């Protein structure tokens, strides 16, 4: 798998209302990689993800997935949203099965895959529950299972834990890290939380707003064998402080 974002710019609106939202975004993502985009709100993170998902088209530049240009949404790029991530009228299992049945897979395959992926996210017992009967963290796990069930080449996560309480968010970060380790998925995570990005991603891009652009990239080399320990370790805290400082200076210079 090779995702290539080359010199992508995006503006919305026409004429005088035209607004440049992304400027010259370039990066690459390969199989097994976990990448994060960090930036304050309004810096264009979601727009980057929507471009990759094919929900928007770039104004300039190109996006290629395995050599083929991205032109429309497709199940090779799975997506998880922060809000309205599940279909409220479908049970957890039906939500996971949704993509498979849209693709017209046969019944036994759907049943087996649904059970498998619910199990992968640790929710085999919740199969028959409606989203409203699940906690926020469980809902996001079902959404991740649904995205994984159609075997996307890359998983796009747009602030998936942004609406969760701090404690649940921490356990979800650990969950996502374990999932990445065990399944070897490729992920692009959007977040405004530097800690989250540093905990999970091998590569972190910092984005600045107006227009949205990547101003700094770090390869994170930290021992991730124990995330709970990592959170409070000295090198982690130093790196976090350094990046937080950069983000602050970006916001400050633009106020």
């Amino acid at each position, binding site marked *: 798998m090779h995702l290539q974002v080359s010199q992508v710019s995006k503006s919305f609106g026409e004429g005088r209302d035209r607004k440049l939202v992304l400027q010259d975004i370039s990066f690459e993502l390969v199989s097994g990689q976990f990448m994060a985009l960090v930036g304050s709100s309004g810096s264009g993170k979601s727009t980057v993800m929507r471009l990759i998902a094919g*929900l928007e088209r770039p104004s300039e530049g190109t996006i290629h997935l395995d050599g083929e240009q991205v032109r429309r949404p*497709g199940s090779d790029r*799975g997506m998880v949203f922060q809000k309205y991530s599940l*279909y409220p009228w479908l049970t957890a299992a039906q939500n996971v099965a949704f993509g498979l049945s849209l693709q017209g897979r046969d019944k036994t395959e759907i049943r087996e895959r649904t059970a498998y992926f619910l199990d992968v996210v640790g929710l085999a017992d919740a199969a028959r529950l*409606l989203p409203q009967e699940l906690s926020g963290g469980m809902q996001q796990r079902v959404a991740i299972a649904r995205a994984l069930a159609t075997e996307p080449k890359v998983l796009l996560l747009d602030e998936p834990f942004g609406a969760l309480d701090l404690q649940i968010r921490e356990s979800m970060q650990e969950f996502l890290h374990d999932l990445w380790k065990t399944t070897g998925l490729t992920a692009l995570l959007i977040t405004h939380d530097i800690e989250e990005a540093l905990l999970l991603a091998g590569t972190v891009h910092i984005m600045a707003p107006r227009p949205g652009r990547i101003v700094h990239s770090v390869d994170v080399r930290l021992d991730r064998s124990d995330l709970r320990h990592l959170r409070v370790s000295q090198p982690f805290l130093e790196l976090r402080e350094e990046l937080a400082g950069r983000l602050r200076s970006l916001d400050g210079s633009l106020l």
Partner: protein
Amino acid sequence: MVWSPPLRRSFSHPWVLGVLGILTVFVAWWLVTSSGMVDKLFLPGPGAVWLAGSDQFQQGILVADAVASVRRVFLGFMISAGLALPIGIAMGTNRPICHFLEPLMALIRYMPAPAFIPLLIIYFGLEELPKVMLIFIGTFFFNTLMIMDAVKFVPSELVETALTLGGRGLPILTRVVAPFIAPQVLDTYRINMASAWNLVIVAELVAANEGLGKRISLAQRFLRTDEIFVGLIVIGLIGLLIDLGFRFLMRRACSWAN
């Protein structure tokens, strides 16, 4: 007065107070009429109304009238609901269609449906068609615009999730938009059914051979206030029954929305 907790709890049940409200009016009605304060010709007592009702029932008039009115309502409303659904969805999902139709519909919506009766009689005579048409005209635009609004409030995330799962075209409509708006559509129908029911009575007051509205206007001619009351109560009861039916359907089919 100090109420014991169980008593208070049973009074807080919505049905108990609702029935109590109806009973209060009923008892007041009975007291006023049995005291002889008002002329029975103006306000018949519950007993007289009951007699008039059972009399009509035994003659078969009551059922025939109810069937005639209900049939008109259902026919007109079914056409209205059936057309409003696809058109409302089209307006909610397609901007040009919406821009084309919305001002037109918003305009017609403000024309009182009963004002169309003279035209409908000129065009379609005095048979069933003008009455069915009146119910159609009186509910179609409201149904359509309310369904359009429901469609516009479908969260884009739900549609986009389906797109990123490999969905496209019609399945997005049938498997994402339709289930999401189902509760609002049922509620729209329930609300507009009330005006359909109003309109059929208006239409029958103007011209009809049978129907609950027709019976009321006949009763007026012979100063049969007891029969007017029978008509009013039966109309209310059937309306309430339809309303409860929609609520029941909603609870069964869209339990996720409660």
